[in-house]
């Protein structure tokens, strides 16, 4: 791989990677059983440079912000590289957000360029208010020939001629603005520098080295911190091959494993559990004697690989299982949310190591990872090289808030010095997560200090962001809490949001209000829904500017109500 200590920016490192592995395949884009494109590193460069040139001809300046809203596909990475080449700041937005949310984040980020796919552009135009965005250039991919694009240009035709200018950046310059949350309330745009990414990539590849033999299947959205690092920057600076699949349907994912001889894939716990469920169903259908033999083999494999994984050996023990994953799988990488230890152990016992870790966008990607030597399902691993972790104000059990320091910690939140000062104190990033460190130096997470939940799909949900969807309820006042914030429990997983309803004086929660809550809930994406409501009969404590004092309210509720008082929906 490239020696990243020698580089000042992502653009510089990627540019060298494209030259060094010029004839090696860097990118395959597949859709179902079709292959849309296959590019070598040289061809990738040949596609990107005319785009850079055209951007520069349109006046794209260093530090100018360009947003990408695209599904995982080759044009995502080509566009991102073009932005870095021209010295721009990339704003990767989650394509799964609504048009209204895209609009809000584009405005907050003050992106002047947008690169997107046709359906997202159509939705954004339908949303209206485009005139309030500072966009001056919109590039749209894969638009139908007769489509009305408004002011936008077609990505495929946006090509300049001649050599573009490579714009050097310093390590401390901002490379990306990545939103960790805040689509409905206070947007949290993490300012991540070139140094953040280069150092994070160095420490991750020190634990899990990639090489040109790696074939990485990219199914997590590339805007997500994990896929951006493990499915773009990491593979590219190691000369590996990235495979994009434009559908997340399990049957096509299974086929892709076989067809492209996939060696690595990142996923979120939701997908990992789905894979586990499929395997367990297959095992349950086996004759009794085969089930007994399988369990014995899993125990044997666990013992044989108790110090470190031995995938070659495990493949011989479980040929059918490994064949179903294409026969070349070396490792799954799971992150974004809490993974059940039993699930991780299940895969490890089948000889499929799952690299579990802990990270947050504010720390670029990862803070700790399991190095698999030996495998441990009960922790989120040890801090990465160059990353310090400490526990603040530990209680008698050693549990306290996890704080992180290192070159992976963001520069701050965009346009929010107050929140930045609260989050980064004396150089330490306060994560809001609660944990403890064991004798082996492994971090154990046990809960959250923050009023938020993380879904199995890896989405951070802040109650304040969901509250906007309940405005106008026929109650005196309401607010939303993470249940664990009011009644802390030392566990993660299955996290819930509850709606606290304070009815008008002398009234109760009527059937009409209950129906309204249910109806509004149904209109929300499943991961943003509230799980229950609690009736509260006192005025909410508020600041002089009438903001709810959430910490005090949570304490009051804790003193007078329990989880048993929640009406679960």
């Amino acid at each position, binding site marked *: 791989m490239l020696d990243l200590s020698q580089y000042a920016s992502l653009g510089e490192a990627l540019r060298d990677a494209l030259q060094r592995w010029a004839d090696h395949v860097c990118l395959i884009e597949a859709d179902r059983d079709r292959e849309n494109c296959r590019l070598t590193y040289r061809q990738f460069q040949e596609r990107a440079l005319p785009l850079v040139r055209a951007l520069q001809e349109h006046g794209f300046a260093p530090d100018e912000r360009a947003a990408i809203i695209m599904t995982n596909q080759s044009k995502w990475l080509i566009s991102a590289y073009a932005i870095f080449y021209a010295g721009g700041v990339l704003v990767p937005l989650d394509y799964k957000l609504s048009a209204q949310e895209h609009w809000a984040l584009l405005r907050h980020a003050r992106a002047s360029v947008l690169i997107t796919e046709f359906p997202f552009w159509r939705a954004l135009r339908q949303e209206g208010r485009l005139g309030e965005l500072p966009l001056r250039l919109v590039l749209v991919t894969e638009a139908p020939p007769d489509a009305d694009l408004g002011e936008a240009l077609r990505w495929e035709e946006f090509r300049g001629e001649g050599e573009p200018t490579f714009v050097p950046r310093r390590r401390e310059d901002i490379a990306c603005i990545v939103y960790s949350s805040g689509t409905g309330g206070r947007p949290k745009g993490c300012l991540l520098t070139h140094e953040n990414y280069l150092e994070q990539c160095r420490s991750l590849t020190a634990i899990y080295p990639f090489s040109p033999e790696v074939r990485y299947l990219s199914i997590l959205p590339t805007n997500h911190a994990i896929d951006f690092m493990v499915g773009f920057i990491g593979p590219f600076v190691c000369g590996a091959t990235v495979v994009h699949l434009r559908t997340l349907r399990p049957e096509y994912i299974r086929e892709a494993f076989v067809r492209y001889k996939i060696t690595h894939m990142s996923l979120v716990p939701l997908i990992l559990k789905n894979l586990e469920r499929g395997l367990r169903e297959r095992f349950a259908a086996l004759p009794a004697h085969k089930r007994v033999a399988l369990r014995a083999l899993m125990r044997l494999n666990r013992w044989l690989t108790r110090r470190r994984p031995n995938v070659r050996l495990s493949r011989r023990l479980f040929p059918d299982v490994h064949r179903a994953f294409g026969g070349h799988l070396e490792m799954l990488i799971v992150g974004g949310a809490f993974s059940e230890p039993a699930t991780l152990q299940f895969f490890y016992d089948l000889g499929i190591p799952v690299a579990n870790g802990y990270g947050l966008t504010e720390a670029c990607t990862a803070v700790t990872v399991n190095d698999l030597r030996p495998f441990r399902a009960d922790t989120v691993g040890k801090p990465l090289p160059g990353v310090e972790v400490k526990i603040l104000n530990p209680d008698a059990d050693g549990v306290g808030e996890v704080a992180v320091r290192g070159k992976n910690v963001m520069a701050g939140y965009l346009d929010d010095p107050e929140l930045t000062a609260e989050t980064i104190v004396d150089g330490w990033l306060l994560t809001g997560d609660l944990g403890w460190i064991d004798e082996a130096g492994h971090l154990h997470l046990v809960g959250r200090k923050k009023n938020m939940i993380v879904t199995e799909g890896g989405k951070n949900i802040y109650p304040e962001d969901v509250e906007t969807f309940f405005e106008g309820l026929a109650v005196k006042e309401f607010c939303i809490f993470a249940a664990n914030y009011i009644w802390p429990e030392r566990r993660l997983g299955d996290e819930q949001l509850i709606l606290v309803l304070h009815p008008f004086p002398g009234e109760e929660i009527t059937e009409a209000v209950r129906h309204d809550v249910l109806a509004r809930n*149904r209109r929300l994406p499943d991961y943003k829904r509230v799980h229950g409501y609690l009736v509260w009969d006192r005025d909410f404590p508020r600041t002089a500017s009438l903001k709810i004092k959430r910490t005090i309210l949570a304490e009051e509720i804790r003193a007078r109500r329990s989880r048993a008082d929640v009406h679960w929906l």
Partner: protein
Amino acid sequence: MRRTVEQTIEELLQLAASHFRVPREQLAPDDDFFEKLRIDSLQALELLTRLEHHFGIELPDYELQGVTSFRALAERIHARL
């Protein structure tokens, strides 16, 4: 003869009921299919594949975006027929 939207909705409800083994009469066009079928987003994608085979069309994953009711999904399918 081209299907009407109502026919598309009915076929969708029948397919969803048989795929997830739910009595057809328990499903109504305006129901939230995540809630009614007790499925997650990955299982919803499985349903999409089944619908593609039935209607003989291709439905990109993004067609599920922002859609929660059978009716809204049927309308998206209908637009592609």
